[in-house]
């Protein structure tokens, strides 16, 4: 077991290195440097040149890369060209919001998907199954942002049930007031994201149940006279729930990549919104840092997926 985990982590190292090189060159491609925000008509161009030289912007590319990676290990992602604050603190503020939004959607997503998958698998080809299939087809076919727009239009603007932007109301006070306001702002975007991310979990669960139903061990249980309910809950369901554990990592990565769209529609101040704001302001240090973080978290999500898979399914370990 530990061997698999270790090997999987070792595979991740070259991926991380290539990712960092790629992000570094992407950053080099972007125009601007740390001093472009500080230039005014009175500054002497020669002085800027000297500053740039001192900051090592004319060093050979490998040297620059090494220094950049060295800074990464020190937790220094650079200083924002626009806001003139360390990128890490800029991102940390927003990451908290994205974390809560993702947590909320994950919880809701699983609590919708599991009953849906079970009822679709149990009542295969009956109306429950067909309803679930139609739902899946729609959420899979239509680009998510269409649902967000229709959702915010209907529930935010027309019915006025939920706030249409931000993560907290400006006049919320006290612990419970703040918490309540934060949850109130998360409900609509979080639920919409959750509804859209159910697909993979539902499909895993449904296929698992349908496939397990005809397995030999189920027939054995039936012929032993085990009651129908026990066969389903203890034998079929338990085996079918395993694979959805592995979908956890993918769900997390999906949420991260989707965060940009949902945060943009709901003007929710998370990492995705920060990314879009930074690109609007051409704040390239923040952009670079965010791409690196998105990439790293995606790698981590995949790692998590594989590790969970190897825990729940021993067959993978042997291979």
């Amino acid at each position, binding site marked *: 077991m530990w061997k698999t985990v270790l090997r999987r982590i070792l595979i991740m190292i070259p991926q991380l290195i290539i990712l960092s090189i790629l992000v570094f060159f992407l950053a080099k491609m*972007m125009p601007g440097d740390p001093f472009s925000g500080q230039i005014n008509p009175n500054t002497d161009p020669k002085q800027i040149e000297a500053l740039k030289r001192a900051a090592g912007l004319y060093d050979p590319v490998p040297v620059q890369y090494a220094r950049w990676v060295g800074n990464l290990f020190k937790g220094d992602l650079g200083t924002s060209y626009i806001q003139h604050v360390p990128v890490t603190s800029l991102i940390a503020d927003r990451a908290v919001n994205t974390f809560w939004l993702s947590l909320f959607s994950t919880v809701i997503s699983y609590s919708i998907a599991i009953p849906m998958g079970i009822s679709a698998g149990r009542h295969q080809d009956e109306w429950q*199954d067909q309803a679930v299939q139609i739902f899946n087809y729609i959420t*899979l076919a239509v680009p998510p942002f269409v649902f967000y727009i229709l959702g915010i239009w209907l529930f935010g603007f027309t019915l006025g049930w939920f706030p249409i932007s931000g993560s907290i109301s400006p006049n919320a006070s006290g612990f419970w007031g703040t918490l309540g306001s934060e949850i109130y702002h998360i409900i609509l975007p979080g639920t919409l994201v959750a509804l859209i991310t159910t697909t993979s979990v539902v499909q895993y669960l449904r296929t698992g149940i*349908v496939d397990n139903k005809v397995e030999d061990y189920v027939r054995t249980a039936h012929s032993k006279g085990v009651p129908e309910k026990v066969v389903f809950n203890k034998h079929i369901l338990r085996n079918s729930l395993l694979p959805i554990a592995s979908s956890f990592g993918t769900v997390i990565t999906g949420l991260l990549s989707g965060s940009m769209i949902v945060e943009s529609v709901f003007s929710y101040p998370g990492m995705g919104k920060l990314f879009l704001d930074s690109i609007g302001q051409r704040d390239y240090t923040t952009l670079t840092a965010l791409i690196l973080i998105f990439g790293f978290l995606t790698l981590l999500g995949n790692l998590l997926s594989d590790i969970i898979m190897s825990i729940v399914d021993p067959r993978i370990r042997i291979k």
Partner: protein
Amino acid sequence: MTENKKGTLTKKAKKEKVSSPTSGFRVIVREVVKDKIALTAFILIVLILLLTFGGSLFLNADKVSETNIIDAYYSWGTAGHFLGTDDGGRDIVNLLIMGSRNSILIGLGVTVICESVGLLVGLISGYYGGYIDAVIMRIVDFIQVLPAMPIEIVLVSVIPHYTPLNLVLIISFFGWTSTARYFRAFVLSQRERDYVLASKTSGSSDLKIMFREVLPNITSMVIIDVVLMIAGNIGIETTLEYIGYGLPPTIPSLGTLIGFANDPVNVVSRPWLWLPATILLLVISLSINYVGRALSRAGDARQREN
């Protein structure tokens, strides 16, 4: 996918096979025509294509995107504008026609590139296996873990002299991997089949086996993948466009129209700007996907015959 339905499809297909041996493609077409919803979806797609591509022939691209602020924000049905006008006084119907044509064209372009590259890589990787396969699959793995959308957005905003072709290439760079993986898995399963082994024994070249023997066996899968991919790519294009990083700003797209919903004022009081485009995108995605799924059901039915 309903298991029972698959069963009956197989039976039907078998019956027909007795009377006349039909090509795989014809079986698929017949299955789609039988499915009433799929047929409706297909007719819808044809109608949309006729309207957008046919309509765009009568429109002058420069004229459509010409701004005239005096006519801005006409509501639907006023001043001879059936769906009103946008902030630059442009007619929404015209923008819808040009916009969906552009979005569909980008979707098609990306699909052509992704399918060709993905198919080629999948064939090579699956057919040769071993070392070549391992190397290719590591590359595919790596591209798949990259955060696609952020990188796409950055590239769109930093490339100088940005053109629609750039957008197609940028989206394609991330898109071909899933196709390659999909076909690789299938080619891998064909590799040890008798017909491949027989062909090898009789001295056919690898290229001939790949393109003349394995490829025809997966044509129905290619068709299905192409259809689903077109829908997916239109989705990616409109999403990028919606957040403001798609086609160059002078070229209309479905996403730009939907992007009007970014402004709360438009959402509340000017729904004609974004609602028609949103509904059109909804209809396009749902119909293409439905046809794709009907095709893949039919493909499964055919697969069982073999």
